[in-house]
């Protein structure tokens, strides 16, 4: 949240408003706006493969930011985030088909529904912390997963649920190119939401609860309320991300939302940087791109003469899985504060070059 300010010389702040921006300098702000603009142009020159990756980053990124608000900012833990993600996907499809509410409104509604469920499963957080809470949220993961398989009225049971494409004034967002805009819009909105949350009252309360809950309470923060709210907001984000996922694929099946997914979300937050909004996005991009880039490396190796032996080809597939694990372990050892911290260090290096201190 707070780093030593790295303002260039002569950049004086003359109002509190100027001193309280999301983007540190005018240049960074311009850069951010320009990159959003560039992202909007991307479908013109990127093929579907990259667009689908970008969409994947968007919906996973939204859900991962939710988990980071819970884990990184409020200092709780949840092993049920994957299930909340799935709940959002089913809820949005259900709201859309059952009540005929347009998809565009079903997505935020699914977010609120997931929020309610998240707060329900967050109730133990009012009393327990740390590892005990982790196990309690693990229960949420399995209960919700079981619910998907059994509640046919809601999820279609083992058959899964169909989810319509987003439809705005008759325009159907059913291709990668068009859905990409929905995804980017949602991503930017939810990340702005998160950034603003963190510089206002409730975001500060979350961090206060994490850093020192006793003095947070003395400062007038209702611990139970904020622990629950944090679960709620986290599930809200998961629900939005899940809903986007459902409407993107057009079909939601109960199989995907396992504990593996929950752990993957946690890994994204840890690799990106706990307690950093932009770090979350970096972590998600990293986790999405890592298997993809390893896949292409494997592809290249198969081209070579020594890589084409059947034993190696079989082995490489395993190697890829192991490499993902290895990278995560290396990250935890060498950059436990995440990509956001590394990014800040690189930035500092260039700013102060050649004086590294």
């Amino acid at each position, binding site marked *: 949240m707070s780093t030593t300010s790295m303002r260039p010389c002569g950049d004086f702040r003359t109002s509190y*408003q100027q001193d309280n921006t999301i983007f540190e300098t005018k240049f960074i702000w311009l850069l951010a706006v320009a990159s959003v603009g560039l992202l909007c142009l991307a479908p013109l020159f990127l093929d579907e493969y990259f667009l689908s990756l970008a969409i994947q980053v968007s919906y996973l990124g939204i859900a991962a930011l939710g988990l980071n608000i819970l884990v990184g900012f409020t200092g709780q833990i949840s092993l049920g985030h994957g299930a909340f993600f799935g709940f959002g996907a089913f809820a949005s499809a259900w709201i859309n088909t059952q009540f005929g509410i347009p998809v565009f409104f079903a997505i935020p509604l699914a977010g609120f529904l997931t929020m309610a469920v998240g707060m329900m499963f967050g109730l133990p957080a009012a009393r327990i912390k740390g590892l005990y809470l982790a196990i309690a949220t693990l229960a949420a993961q399995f209960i919700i997963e079981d619910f998907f398989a059994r509640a046919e009225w809601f999820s279609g049971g083992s058959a899964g649920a169909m989810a319509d494409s987003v439809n705005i004034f008759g325009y159907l967002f059913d291709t990668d190119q068009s859905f990409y805009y929905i995804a980017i819009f949602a991503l930017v909105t939810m990340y702005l939401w998160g950034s603003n949350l963190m510089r206002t009252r409730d975001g500060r309360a979350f961090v206060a609860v994490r850093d020192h809950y006793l003095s947070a309470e003395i400062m007038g923060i209702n611990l139970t309320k904020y622990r629950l709210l944090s679960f709620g907001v986290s599930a809200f984000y998961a629900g939005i991300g899940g809903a986007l996922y459902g409407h993107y694929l057009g079909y939601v099946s109960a199989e995907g939302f396992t504990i593996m997914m929950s752990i993957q979300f946690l890994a994204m937050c840890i690799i990106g940087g706990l307690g950093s909004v932009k770090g979350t996005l970096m972590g998600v991009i990293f986790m999405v791109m890592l298997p993809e880039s390893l896949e292409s490396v494997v592809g290249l190796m198969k081209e070579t003469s020594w890589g084409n032996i059947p034993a190696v080809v079989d082995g490489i597939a395993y190697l890829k899985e192991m490499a993902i694990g290895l990278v995560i372990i290396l990250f935890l050892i060498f950059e436990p504060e995440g990509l956001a911290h590394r990014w800040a260090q690189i930035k500092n290096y260039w700013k102060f070059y050649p004086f590294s201190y």
Partner: protein
Amino acid sequence: MAESILDVNNISLAFGGVKALTDVSFSVEKGSVFSIIGPNGAGKTSMLNCVSGRYQPQEGAITFDGKIVTNLRPNDRANLGMGRTFQNLALFGHMSVLDNIMVGRHHLLKNNWVTGPLYWLSGAQKEELAHRRHVEEIIDFLEISHIRKSTAGTLSYGLRKRVELARAMALKPKMILLDEPMAGMNLEEKEDMARYILDLNEEFGITVVMIEHDMGVVMDISHQVMVLDFGKKLISGDPEMVMADPHVKRAYLGEEVDESEAVGA
């Protein structure tokens, strides 16, 4: 007698068989500086914890500003205007000093998790900036403007104590509880801190209840002093009167009595 802001009536607190406080009563006048002294383990911090809501006393009642607060949670007491600092530093270590102090404004701010993020649309920005102005006044008052953007966890001990005081002041408290505000400070920092405490008492009209071991400071700035020993109240009253009391000398101030007795014998 002037109007009292805090009335503590017959408080008893026990942890299992350990009686931390036994039948302690006192009242603090509005606008005064009230010090609690006593040897280690006398129950001073327990007393403060009962007042601020950390502990629930088994017996007795606490009235703050006309309301009975005995069963209220600490956060509700903060909303009523009770600020506090801790003996061991309790800042939010990863937040900037500014954010730390802004947390103190929590109960005065209105925006929530929906209106806060709708920063520009909901008026949250205006509200935040208005409160920032108040926070800056406190920052100016405590002379910590040079560190307002630093991470609280990286500051020196003396500065952290000051930030903690700033955070408690941001609550806009009617009464502030200070648990050893001068522990571990050098003479200069102690003098500064004493001046801040007097200023916040006189300029801002905040009632101060503090625990302090430095007898010089206690005698100089308090209007009333209470002495605790083994969870019991020995005496309370003017600093001079308390100092002169033989029980207090024996329990806390020590030496002189022993020496004179030794000489006499």
